[in-house]
């Protein structure tokens, strides 16, 4: 590594850094910066300077296309704008969720029993209207149907376990409630309004989707009957 002493401070400096060193460290020194290096020394610094790598046009195009494709794939996977919304007769997407009491429920572990899966929001007035119907259903079907309500947190202030638990208790709802913290479950079921209730049969197949005003007791009884309850 070729060095040369700075004419001002007498410190050994790499040849390629000498001019910059004098310019920056001794701006008021009466030194002609351009004359610090000889022609031979300039050739040495030019040789030691890393050569810039060339990019070909073809390479840049290929990398740009690849970057766009990879970015598109990642966006599709992460944001999933085309969720596989389950229709009647299709398998309900599996998920695991932590309930407001701290236990974890995996939907597929309910296989073998029909499931009433409600998407609701404690701040949604229509959900408050529906819950007495569900309480009545639970009284009659709790031995043969699993109930699970998921708060989607669409409206009102941010929901939390305590708020949901308090709401359920005040309405006499004693089945598990859970909060969809990131909206992943809600998206996977394509839920855009609350309350939306899916009735699944013992194999996890969607047999009915109920929304107001088709969410009366008799509507639920028909749906549960279709699900084999």
């Amino acid at each position, binding site marked *: 590594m070729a060095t040369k002493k700075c004419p001002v401070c007498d410190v050994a400096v790499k040849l390629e850094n000498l001019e910059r060193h004098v310019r920056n460290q001794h701006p008021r020194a009466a030194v002609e910066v351009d004359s610090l290096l000889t022609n031979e020394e300039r050739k040495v610094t030019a040789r030691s300077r890393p050569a810039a*790598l060339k990019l070909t046009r073809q*390479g840049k195009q290929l990398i740009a296309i690849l970057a766009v494709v990879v970015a598109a794939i*990642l966006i599709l996977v992460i944001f999933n704008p085309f969720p596989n919304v389950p229709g009647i007769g299709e398998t309900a997407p599996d*998920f695991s969720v932590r309930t407001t009491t701290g236990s974890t429920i995996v939907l*597929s572990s309910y296989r073998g029993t029909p499931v009433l899966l409600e998407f609701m929001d404690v701040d949604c007035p229509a959900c408050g209207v529906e819950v007495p119907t569900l309480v009545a259903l639970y009284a009659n079907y709790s031995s043969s149907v699993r109930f699970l309500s998921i708060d989607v947190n669409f409206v009102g202030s941010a929901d939390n376990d305590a708020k949901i638990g308090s709401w359920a208790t005040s309405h006499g709802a004693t089945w598990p409630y859970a909060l969809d*913290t*990131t909206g992943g479950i809600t998206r996977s079921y394509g839920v855009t309004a609350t309350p939306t209730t899916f009735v699944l049969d013992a194999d996890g197949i969607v047999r009915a989707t109920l929304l107001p005003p088709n969410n009366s007791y008799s509507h639920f009884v028909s749906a549960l009957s279709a699900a084999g309850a």
Partner: protein
Amino acid sequence: MAREGLSRGDLLLLIAVLSAFGIATSAYLAYQWYEAASSSWCDIDAFFSCSTVRESPYAAIGGVPTAFLGVGGFAILFALAGAGLRGRDPIGPWSVDRWLLLFALIGAGAGMGLTLIEIFVIQAICILCVIGFALDLGILAAAVALARDRPAFPPTP
């Protein structure tokens, strides 16, 4: 990919770009491990289920998400490719190409191991993890192409 059409700079830039995507993917996986403890995401069915993989014991080592290994590995590859693009070669005893090949092999090996664990042990596939593995393989292919035409050690001055 036709090697003849791509310069050394192209290959280094390709590795840098793929590594950048790898960092983003791994960082998102790590974020999901911390932030999505009670919800599903990118779950298609019981086999293609990110939740199942995330909740397996292989998703974290000592409470630290395994995805952080990916962030670190891709960051090293990104830094090496950046150093190569800036002409900083060699680094220590080896050329940038050789360092890139070494870390690309480690990354692809780790990616393959984790993918095999997903398939045969956890019995579920996390799509983002597979994308990370694919990025590893792409980087390895580019690193092999780089190293193929260059001596393993830089010439002695």
